[in-house]
């Protein structure tokens, strides 16, 4: 029956997902059963008792206690089964094991930031070891967000005034999509992240040296990747259209006017400062809404972005 499940649900990334899917499919069968019962009765009655003349003889029954109790009690019992089943899996899903790897997560318009116990931070990409429970301790810097991992069947709102938690344990290395599911404004649809589940040795290596596949990548190529994955693309276009921020097309080497009246040349230093201290220089006609990337980009990554901007002619 797994094809039937795959028809409804995304791939399973955790054993919790499998548990949720079992209940989901149970309810699918309940739904189909009851719908066919009701639709079948309606169809049969319409055909069988279609009006033939104004003087059709009709049934006289106006109520039947036994029947009414039956169709109250059976659905009630089924509902109770579903309630307890959902309750049981919910409790395992919300209470994290004590030995979980704790990672702090911050949501803000419109990026996700992860901070590891050793202080390293990562933007939009969460690298975790397979086979180990991971607990996310989450907070928001501005409005409500919600951290949704469809493959793990979990989500939890991220609030500005208190910490919320969720946890998962994936035994299957791979990449999993994260999406924001609490409406948060212009960039809501683009507020994505990626969870990369790695084997424990790969994970150790990652902690030391950063994402393995990026280390030998040419700068401009790395820049293009970062442009998509670090949230630049949400505000800065590379086709000349105006977004939340200025376009990157043909921008390098231009003189630009700031909101405070200064004229600045868009060169390497300008870009570096804009990335690390975005509020220092805001181009006239735009709001100063860009968050700082201080501590979030390695030096080589900043170089890569500069190289990428240069290529946008």
């Amino acid at each position, binding site marked *: 029956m797994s094809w039937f499940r795959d028809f*409804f649900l*995304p791939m399973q990334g955790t054993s919790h997902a499998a548990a*949720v899917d079992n*209940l*989901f499919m149970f*309810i699918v069968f*309940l*739904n189909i059963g*009851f719908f066919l019962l*009701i*639709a079948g*009765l*309606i169809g049969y*009655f*319409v055909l069988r*008792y279609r*009006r*033939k003349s*104004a003087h059709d003889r*009709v*049934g006289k*029954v*106006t*109520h*039947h206690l036994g*029947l*009414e109790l039956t*169709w*109250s009690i059976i*659905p*009630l019992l089924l*509902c*109770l089964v*579903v*309630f307890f089943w*959902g*309750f*049981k*899996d*919910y409790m395992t899903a919300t209470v994290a094991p004590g030995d979980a790897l704790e990672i702090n997560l911050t949501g803000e318009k419109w990026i996700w930031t992860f901070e590891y116990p050793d202080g390293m931070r990562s933007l939009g990409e969460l690298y975790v070891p397979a086979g180990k429970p991971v607990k996310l301790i989450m907070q928001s810097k*501005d*409005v*409500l967000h*919600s951290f949704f991992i469809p*493959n793990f*069947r979990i*989500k*939890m*709102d991220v*609030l*500005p*005034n208190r910490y919320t938690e969720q946890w998962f344990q994936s035994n299957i290395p791979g990449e999993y*999509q994260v*999406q924001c*599911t609490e*409406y948060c*404004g212009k*960039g*809501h*649809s683009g507020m994505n992240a990626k969870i990369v589940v790695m084997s424990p040795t790969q994970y150790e290596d990652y902690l030391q040296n950063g994402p393995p596949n990026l280390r030998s990548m040419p700068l401009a190529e790395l820049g293009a990747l970062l442009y998509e994955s670090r949230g630049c693309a949400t505000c800065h276009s590379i086709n000349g259209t105006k977004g939340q921020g200025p376009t990157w097309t043909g921008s390098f080497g231009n003189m630009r006017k700031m909101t405070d009246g200064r004229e600045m040349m868009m060169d390497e230093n300008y870009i570096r400062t804009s990335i690390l201290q975005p509020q220092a220089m805001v181009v006239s006609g735009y709001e100063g809404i860009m968050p700082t990337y201080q501590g979030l980009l390695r030096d080589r990554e900043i170089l890569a972005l500069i190289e990428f901007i240069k290529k946008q002619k």
Partner: protein
Amino acid sequence: MATTSTPVTHHGGQHAPHASYLEDPQYRGLMSWLTTVDHKRIGLMYLWSVLTAFLLGGLFALALRLELLTPKEDFMTAETYNKVFTLHGAVMVFLFIIPAIPAALGNFVLPLMLGAKDVAFPRLNLASYYVYMTGAIMALTAILTGGIDTGWTFYTPYSTTTGGAVTLMTFSVFVLGFSSIFTGINFVATVHKLRAPGMGWFDLPLFVWGTYATAIIQVLATPVLAITLLLLAFERMFQIGIFDAKLGGDPVLFQHFFWFYSHPAVYIMILPGMAIISEIIPPFSKKHIFGYRAIAFSSVAIALISFIVWGHHMFTSGQSQLAAVIFSFLTFLVAIPSGIKVFNWVATMYRGSISLDTPMLYAISFLLLFTIGGLTGIFLGALSVDIHLHDTYFIVAHFHYVMMGGTVIAFLAGVHYWWPKMFGRMYNETWARIGCILVFFGFNITFLNQFAMGAKGMPRRYYSYLDQFQGNHIGSTVGSWVLALGLFIAAGVLLASLRKKYDAPDNPWGARTMEWETQSPPITHNFPNNPVMQHGPYDFDAPAVRRES
């Protein structure tokens, strides 16, 4: 096309002995409408107003669906899309669905069903209409002066920090709430005090029971929304820290307040729809409603339990696990009375004499769509499954099946059912049925696709999306065109009938409730004499009461 084959009293039409409320020589001209206290005229003014809101909200929906045809930006920017989906929700909920059945159809039919001359407080009734119009104009002003992009739910702290005309919009909803409260008070008093002689509580048509239960929720729950929105507006204007964490407030508190109103409000929307269905199935089956008391009591049970399930909108909000478990449990309890009603309606058709005129066709559509809407609610009541489905398109599909497949289809059923009484004309039955069938299939194409992509993880309120969801989005958009075509046909058919002379009999469907005992359309004071209860509302064995003329 035989509209009916039951014996009727042909007193309607040009032989009508009394001028109808539409052309009473005592009440002519525009001012007679603007100052009317006749519940029928107020009902009609409400009807045109809510239909205008429905058109507006529908056009917004079509624009949204068009934008979603491709994963990337097509013709709307993110900001525009966010404003349009907010307006679609706010207009549909506050300007259309909430007033649609009680204020438009209820106003017209309820006093007639009770054998009354009018509602208990006719002037309050007119006031409620003007309050509604005031709220509508404020909403329109808010749309034209900057718009709003908060979603119809106004979640904080987004709503307290974003730009646009949010404050004006919240005041608009605040004002609209009073119109809803006025209607509710009026109906409660009317049902208690103005029933025809001999009409006990269990002789009431079920439409009256449903509307009565609705009125109670309106009166009790709407003030909570009003207070909440007032707090929100004060926070925006004076920086009082109630909901905004930066000011020391709690954003989740807003969700509690909001859903404490808005969950019962879901039943303000669906109970009147159920009430219409209870009215339509018996005459088109020529059979007494099955389980009258069960349907009546389940309306009241739904009204009461609906007040204590609001937390099921907040399973992922960070509320405590204990709260989540309790709300999940209560949610399953509120499902049962709705299920009972469906079984009762189906059982009413058993061994009946079923004719498939347009109102019945809509009623059967309702049964099928509402059943899907209700059954998919089971996924969302179950805690572990809801965590996955919350805020995805699955939710969007579920509530459209209940609100549109349920309430709006029932509203259309009611409009087609009472149209001859309201306007004295029969519409073209063939085209009306074609409209109904297109609506049914268009609706299913639109929203079954949304169930599918929601379960796969497509979040709601996204103006661009991952490529993998495009197939379902295309299906949904194409469905929305079929749905719109069906609705435009239905509208055309009804409007075209208004060009004819009066041709509707008093009782075209052979129903037994009292509104069919007066002429079509009724005289200003409803009945030429004071009607007396002579048989039950679903007593098809009793001889039809003949109007004295």
